[in-house]
């Protein structure tokens, strides 16, 4: 089997310049007084793991353990400070749905723009817009500006757009379903379809029951370090018994 993700000894550090006071004036003042300090906040250190094709891989850990940072690295948004990270194939991040939505554009324009941001071919997307909107249940509103949409409608449209094409690697940050009642069930079903379709999935969640149900393997992060990796049951049991 081929690895979709291969991480070798990756580190990630945020740079914090003079305790967040970021202006040229203070920098100059501190420079004159020889007080320029650059602090590195180590978010991840020495992580090595790989994710195989078709696997559902979950990341668990406390708030601030580095889960979201790791997901950003996997989404190719930031490069690791040290180490090697290799990702093959197309990546679709479902980190924050509708991150590129613009309230001044119409629903249709937003679907096209959001798809373009995800690196899709917009000629194909344009033909599918009506289907996407139909699935999200917003067909009547599609040609109105997004600011006239309710927040539920925006979430449904974003979810429908993001999941319209199945990528090689899907990154999920807690978004396993959106909306309420019927749509929550519908979106959950689609998510499960995608996960079981053979796509590689990396999932970050606090919902341990869902993780146990979906994941093939689990990585437990603590303070930016790999604490335990392997079989979901074992890792979750160890995580729970650690008092978290």
């Amino acid at each position, binding site marked *: 089997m081929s690895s979709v993700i291969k991480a070798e000894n990756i580190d990630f550090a*945020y*740079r914090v*310049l003079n305790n967040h006071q*970021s*202006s*040229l*004036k203070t*920098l100059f003042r501190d420079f004159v007084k020889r007080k320029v300090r650059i602090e590195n906040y180590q978010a991840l250190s020495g992580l090595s793991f790989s994710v195989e094709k078709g696997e559902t891989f979950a990341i668990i850990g406390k708030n601030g353990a580095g889960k979201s940072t790791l997901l*950003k690295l996997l*989404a*190719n*948004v*930031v*490069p690791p400070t040290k180490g090697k990270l290799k990702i093959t194939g197309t*990546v679709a*991040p479902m*980190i*924050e749905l509708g*991150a*590129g939505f*613009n309230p*001044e*554009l119409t629903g249709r324009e937003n679907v*096209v*723009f959001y798809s*373009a*941001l*995800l*690196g*899709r*071919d*917009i*000629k194909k997307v344009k033909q599918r817009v009506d289907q996407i909107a139909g699935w999200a249940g917003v067909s009547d509103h599609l040609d109105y500006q997004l600011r006239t949409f309710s927040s539920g409608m925006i979430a449904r449209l974003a979810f429908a757009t993001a999941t319209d094409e199945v990528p090689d690697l899907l990154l999920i940050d807690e978004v396993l379903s959106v909306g309420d009642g019927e749509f929550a069930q519908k979106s959950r079903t689609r998510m499960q379809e995608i996960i079981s379709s053979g796509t590689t999935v990396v999932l970050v969640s606090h919902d341990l029951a869902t993780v146990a149900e979906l994941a093939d393997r689990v990585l437990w992060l603590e303070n930016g370090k790999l604490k335990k990796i392997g079989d979901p049951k074992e890792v979750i049991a160890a995580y729970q018994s650690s008092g978290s």
Partner: protein
Amino acid sequence: MRTNKISLYAITGFSKNNIQLLRLLIQQELTLRYKRSVIGIGWTLLNPMLTSFVLWIVFSFFFAGKLETGQQFAPYLMAGILLNTFFNQGLLQAANSIAANGNILTKVAVPPKIFAFAASLAAFTNFLIGLIPLAAVVYISGQTLSITFPIVLLIGLFMAFLTAGIGLMLSVIFIRFDDAKNIINVLLLILLYLTPVFYPLSILSEGMQKIVTLNPLTSFLDAFRWSFSNNASATTGDFIYLSVTGIAFFVLGNFIFKKYWPRTVSML
């Protein structure tokens, strides 16, 4: 033997779908700004005309007689304002674009430079639209368009390179330092006075003339005025200077951005 195909994609590092995204972004930049106004994109035509009209009333008293024979002050001034607007708009919007789209850039893997390029190319498009009222003013003042006017496209392209390059450099600085914008605004104002936008070069002392000629924007402006309606004199040197400046800043901007972006993105 296999020959390597040189394509736009290979040079820019953008995929074919990224080029589609770039087109969408330029469209948005052009239409969204005036979305809620009555005359919409008509402002792009009106803006330079209104600004030029106000400045023309003020400055034609002082400078109209100082131009060389055959040159007209109204198109001289308006060309200056058009190009200066292009420079300021392209540069500032390219510089702001990265921070403004921070919420996208921290969640989706899009080449960040695409936003800066879109801003510069949108400013370029605005400039091209502005050539229509400029042509009208040229004819109203009794001049005609020169046969060389297509060269303006090339000058505009180098200006787009220049603004994208400087914009990319500034974008990293803007994210890191909150007060950098204010400093840049002052510098741009100084640069405006060091460019013969609304005055003829001949009114300056010899020493000042030397300084103003060193400003690459002066070469851009002379070349533009000359090729559009023969309203200034431009030398081959001007053309070399403007193209070298455009390309040099573009390369430098890309280089600096590439170097500092990984450390800057986590500040968004």
